[in-house]
């Protein structure tokens, strides 16, 4: 075949316009740090204590005490310099690697905490992280559920309902059998039952998947509220006595300072979450199931032409996903040692959906987004208990604002699986 000469290099004025968005954000935050937290932050002469120990650690890590003012100023200077570097790269139409925003973000956070914690109290780093992880657990399970569904072409808005159903059934079964592990078995069943309805209407009757999802959420709220106020409250000792999954520290790992207590002194449910994420990540990109799942989510007809049963696979995947979300729901009750309460999932299913999109439909991305959300939320908690002057309502808004910025500023137009939400039926 004949091939013409390669296209010549683009001349300078044809190149993409310089993208100033990120450098501007960096610069604004850097200046804020330098002046707001540093120079005029009123932290002169004070100290900030970062504590890492939880009192029960095997190795105890000493508290880190820093002089608030110089630290914040120093961090501010570094951040401003980083912003300048980003700007310089932008003029060359280059972007720094992923490490850049990560380092920048951590440094900014450090400066912020140094300022916020100046003499008001200790910054308990380990509980801050542990709490963030705890708040992320249902989000991560939920996001995994959404991801498996959408990767196979089924949009699942019913995560919220699946979490709630999981929380409910886990609590009831654990309570009735006096065994938290029984709840762990029941929870995925509840999630999968909701998924049965989802797939029944979506695949059998081609009802719009978003509609079914929204309606299923209402249905689960209605049912659980109803059962709660009739059956559960009539006889709470039998049906709604709290059962708690014990924490199972993993030997050695749990003794690692800071991260040990955060990650490895958890209930089996949290370990299941690690496993779920790892397994989904590996399977989705390296297994036969993953290849087929991605195929039916992107181009079901192509999958059909190579003999893959599209709708059957979709059903199976959505049911598995429902089970995963159900497990996430169990975290609200047996995972946290709480009895069931009305509408316990409190909108976390929708946040999980957001985390999945924010993570661009990849397991690791979704986990990162869920952790970001959990962290923002727990940061609000920490600041409020430390007695920061910012009103608690405004702190509670924090994670939602962060999410909007993330979706609008850094994710923008993302590409969902091409066939998500579209029913498939070869005549």
């Amino acid at each position: 075949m004949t091939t013409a000469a390669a296209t010549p290099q683009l001349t300078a004025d044809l190149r993409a316009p310089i993208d100033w968005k990120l450098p501007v954000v960096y610069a604004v935050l850097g200046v804020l740090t330098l002046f707001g937290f540093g120079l005029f932050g009123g932290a002169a002469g004070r100290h900030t204590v970062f504590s890492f120990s939880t009192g029960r650690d095997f190795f105890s890590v000493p508290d880190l005490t820093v002089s608030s003012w110089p630290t914040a100023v120093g961090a501010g200077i570094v951040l401003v310099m980083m912003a300048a570097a980003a700007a310089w790269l932008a003029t060359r139409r280059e972007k720094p690697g992923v490490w850049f925003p990560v380092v920048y973000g951590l440094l900014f956070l450090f400066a912020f905490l140094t300022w916020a914690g100046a003499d008001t109290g200790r910054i308990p780093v380990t509980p801050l992280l542990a709490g963030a992880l705890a708040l992320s657990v249902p989000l991560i399970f939920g996001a995994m559920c959404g991801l498996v569904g959408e990767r196979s072409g089924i949009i699942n808005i019913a995560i919220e309902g699946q979490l709630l159903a999981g929380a409910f059934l886990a609590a009831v079964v654990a309570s009735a059998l006096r065994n938290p592990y029984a709840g762990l078995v029941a929870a995925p069943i509840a999630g999968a039952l909701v998924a049965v309805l989802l797939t029944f209407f979506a695949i059998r009757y081609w009802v719009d998947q978003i509609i079914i999802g929204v309606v299923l959420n209402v249905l689960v709220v209605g049912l659980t509220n109803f059962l709660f106020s009739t059956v559960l409250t009539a006889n709470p000792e039998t049906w709604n006595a709290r059962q708690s999954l014990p924490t199972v520290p993993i030997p050695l790992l749990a003794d690692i300072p800071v991260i040990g207590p955060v990650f490895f002194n958890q209930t089996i449910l949290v370990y299941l979450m690690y496993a779920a994420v790892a397994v989904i990540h590996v399977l989705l990109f390296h297994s036969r199931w993953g290849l087929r799942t991605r195929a039916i989510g992107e181009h079901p007809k192509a999958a059909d032409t190579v003999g893959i049963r599209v709708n059957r696979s979709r059903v199976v995947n959505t049911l598995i996903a429902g089970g995963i979300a159900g497990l996430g729901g169990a975290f609200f009750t047996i995972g946290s040692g709480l009895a069931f309460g009305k509408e316990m999932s409190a909108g976390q299913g929708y946040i999980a959906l957001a985390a999945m999109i924010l993570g661009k439909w990849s397991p690791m991305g979704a986990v990162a987004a869920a952790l970001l959300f959990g962290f923002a939320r727990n940061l609000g908690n920490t600041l409020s208990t430390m007695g920061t002057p910012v009103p608690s309502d405004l702190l509670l808004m924090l994670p939602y604002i962060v999410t909007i910025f993330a979706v609008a500023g850094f994710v923008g137009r993302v590409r969902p699986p091409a066939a998500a939400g579209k029913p498939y039926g070869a005549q």
Partner: protein
Amino acid sequence: GEAPEDSAAGDGGGDNSDYKACIVSDQGGWDDKSFNESAKAGLDMAVEELGIDHATAESSADADFGPNVDNMVSQGCNITLGVGFLLEGAIHDAAEANTDLHFGLVDATFTDDDSNTVELDNGKPIIFNTAEAAYLAGYLAAGMSESGTVATFGGIQIPSVTIFMDGFVDGVAKYNEDNGDEEVKVLGWDKEAQSGSFSGDFENQSQGQALTEQFISQDADIIMPVAGPVGLGAASAASADGDTSIVWVDQDGYESTEYGDIILTTVQKEIATAVKDTIAQDVEGNFSSEPYVGTLENGGVDLAPYHDFEDEVPEELDAKVQELKEQIISGDIVVESPSTP
């Protein structure tokens, strides 16, 4: 199973079945482990003891208050009680429109458009000066704290919540004053600035759990959640920690929750008794629109027994608490709060 014999309906104590007492909840619902539940318990007691007819309605949104109260009126309820300040408007309107019926309002007073308290001939406010009991709880907590840090947080910042927190903070301050060398810190509420930690609602237990974990990590070892069921999250976190105890509120948490072993005491608000008494008075034809104010003096608020902590509370501390209680009853000490009804 066996089929029961047909039996005539009607059991219980007296027979006042032509009298109907009705009650409307706010969004918390009847199982809020808090004032709705207590108020309902009061109604149930009245039904049991007096053999009256009754009706209940749970509200799930603000828009439900009006119609719910109105439904009670159409049913011809002799007395209709609303639980919570949110029902003030609905009860107030109904009372003005139906002067022949009686009404009650738990935890709030009737107010005019400019928020000035007004009296209605057929409406009885049932309110509580919880700060008095919370004061004792604060003193006790300060005395019991080993870390020298105690904490409190609320569900939503409303007077009936912050009044607990005010009393608690003052109690701790009193302890510090009495024991010159002590410097027990209270986290979560700044009485001066009237600002502090709130979970944001009365439902989200995980949020209560997360907040409590933060307090624990700040060294607090006694925590008073004033947040209805959100307190269960706090209790769960405290129980997981093992070294932290809880001061419960409203009904004695030793009995109403599963966390008896970590509940140091409860700042009790005898809503049930007050509701029952109000109904009983009305049944007897002794309705009075004079506000009922629960105090330490009339037993409307109180500190619950220490239960499992009985042995741990030092005798001197308990004696001091009792002494303070006497002083408050006698008026030697006045517990002040911007939220005092």
